[in-house]
């Protein structure tokens, strides 16, 4: 019987094409808005989380803290207080899997007729493993490179493209700040970092070489940052505490004095970022849902008109044997058909718009099944919710009064 009622409901919709179209349009716009907004929200979320995760998992970052000289405070890392000795000591803590110093600076690279400005990272042999960053060609830095401060470099993809083109860079000599460095390896692609920097535009050199020959300023023996990877997520918080205690001891900080360093837990940063962008998704979705709700009210309005218009028809159907439940089902199916049709079209439009927005406006969008399934479910629910009252009203008509209705 449902099949017959469905086809009847479909006929009823078709007999009032313009009205059905306009009513469904409200739902179409609402669903399209929800799909589009959630896609944008999720795209943003994925982009943020992706760039945090591209740093590697279970990471702690130790920075030199702000220092105070007279009344003037410098920002984080203002005076480098961290040393290679600190790195070695942190490396000895049990939960530490890897630890690497990082010193950075921009350098000019020259190879043959080409030159390029890139971001130099002075690190140790563990850095690439710590970052889950693979070598695509050649090899990474070795312990002996660090110990003897050799002039070797591992290049990012973008540097290779700009200096070498199609040529094989391994074994070639590039001039970095006018010093010759032998290229020993090429990094795999990594993409954007959290601060929006292109990580493929990097050159990796031994920390010792960087300190002594490339980036050394007034604080030659210091490092600007230490990156530490814990063995697992559970050890992360313990490691954070242990590093604080260790560095306070090593830096001779008195009991009530402030740390001269800061420890950032990248997992909690990721969690916060994920929470914030998740909230953004939710907010965008909520705003879009308002239009879906308004569409639902449109359905209810039209269904109420339809019930009034068809009072006599309802009376006839009751006289020839339709019970209340059948009448209820019939009108409910009509509103569900409107919302599902509107919803499916809305999903198509929403997905299409999301793709256009992603390409034209360069806004990150992520089209997943979740908002689509959700939007479909919601449009069925809207049909049931807003169709129920008019359908119930129809089913509760008294047959004789409905038959008398002119």
């Amino acid at each position, binding site marked *: *019987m449902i099949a*017959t*009622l469905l086809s009847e409901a479909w*006929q*009823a919709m078709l*007999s009032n094409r313009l009205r059905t179209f306009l009513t469904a349009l409200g739902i179409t716009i609402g669903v399209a808005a929800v799909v589009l907004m959630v896609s944008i929200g999720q795209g943003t979320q994925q982009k943020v989380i992706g760039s945090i995760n591209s740093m590697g998992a279970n990471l702690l970052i130790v920075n030199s803290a702000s220092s105070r000289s007279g009344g003037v405070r410098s920002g984080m890392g203002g005076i480098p207080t961290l040393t290679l000795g600190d790195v070695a000591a942190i490396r000895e803590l049990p939960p530490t899997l890897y630890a690497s110093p990082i010193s950075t600076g921009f350098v000019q690279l020259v190879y043959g007729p080409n030159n390029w400005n890139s971001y130099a990272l002075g690190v140790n042999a563990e850095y690439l493993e710590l970052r889950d960053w693979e070598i695509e060609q050649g090899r990474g830095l070795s312990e002996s490179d660090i110990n003897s401060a050799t002039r070797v470099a591992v290049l990012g993809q973008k540097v290779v493209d700009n200096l070498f083109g199609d040529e094989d860079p391994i074994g070639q000599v590039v001039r970095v700040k006018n010093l010759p460095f032998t290229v020993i390896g090429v990094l795999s692609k990594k993409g954007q970092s959290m601060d929006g920097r292109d990580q493929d535009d990097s050159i990796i050199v031994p920390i010792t070489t960087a300190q002594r020959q490339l980036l050394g300023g007034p604080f030659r023996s210091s490092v600007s940052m230490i990156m530490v990877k814990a063995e697992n997520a559970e050890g992360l918080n313990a490691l954070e505490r242990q590093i604080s205690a260790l560095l306070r001891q090593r830096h001779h900080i008195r009991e009530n004095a402030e740390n001269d360093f800061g420890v950032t837990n990248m997992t909690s940063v990721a969690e916060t970022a994920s929470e914030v962008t998740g909230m953004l998704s939710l907010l965008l979705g909520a705003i879009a849902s308002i239009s879906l709700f308004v569409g639902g009210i449109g359905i209810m309005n039209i269904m109420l008109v339809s019930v009034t218009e068809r009072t*006599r*028809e309802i009376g*006839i*159907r*009751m*006289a*020839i*044997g*339709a*019970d*209340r*439940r*059948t009448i209820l089902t019939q009108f409910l199916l009509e509103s569900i058909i409107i919302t599902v049709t509107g919803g499916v079209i809305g999903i198509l439009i929403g997905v299409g718009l999301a793709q256009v927005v992603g390409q034209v406006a360069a806004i990150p969008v992520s089209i997943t099944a979740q908002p689509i399934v959700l939007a479909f479910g919601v449009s069925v629910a809207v049909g049931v919710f807003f169709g129920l009252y008019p359908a119930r009203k129809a089913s509760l008509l008294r*047959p*004789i009064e409905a*038959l008398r209705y002119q």
Partner: protein
Amino acid sequence: MPPVIQLDALTKDYLTDAGAVAVLKGISLKVAKGEFVAVMGPSGSGKSTLMNILGCLDIPCGGHYLLNATDIGTLPEPELARLRGQVIGFVFQGFNLLPRMSLGNNVALPLVYQRIGKAERLARATDLLGQVGLGHLVASLPTRISGGQQQRVAIARALVTRPSLILADEPTGNLDSHTGREIMELFQRINRDQHITIVLVTHDMSVARYAQRLVYLKDGLLAYDGAVADFHGVEA
């Protein structure tokens, strides 16, 4: 065999702004299977109310209505709907076909509510449209045919569930006299050939003559109940 219709001291009141108005004041009546009864009476005499109760569209306030020995006063709404669909066939003055549906589907509609399969629905509808002389118009819409044809379709619809009782409320009221005669001959044939009980309301004596028995209502009471041929009017 119990009578198709048995009314015992049936009453019906309506609440109006002026208070309760008694429309039926105690009607007792039996209609046996295969009878053809015409109900007459001036307007306001309670004919329509009586038909609504007979058709299970309304329930009495007092007394009993036994339809095929079932007291309908005690039945819940879904049961009443089932009786309307299976036991009773309605024919209205205004035909009451659904304008958007083909004649075939209009006739088959009561079978939808009895969960009868599509193929059988269509076969039965086509057969009945053939019986009322409209077999060639199965796919037409009600708006494309004449009033007399529409009433034939309505009669086919009333017959499609093979009911034991047909209730007709002024079935010729909207038709010219020639077409009205054809419709009444159709009723007579159905009554005679299929032994279906027919109760028909009319204000036209020439229509009532197609029935065997006449029930005359006046002020909510039975003023006459007997053979049509013996009826010579009631005193004012």
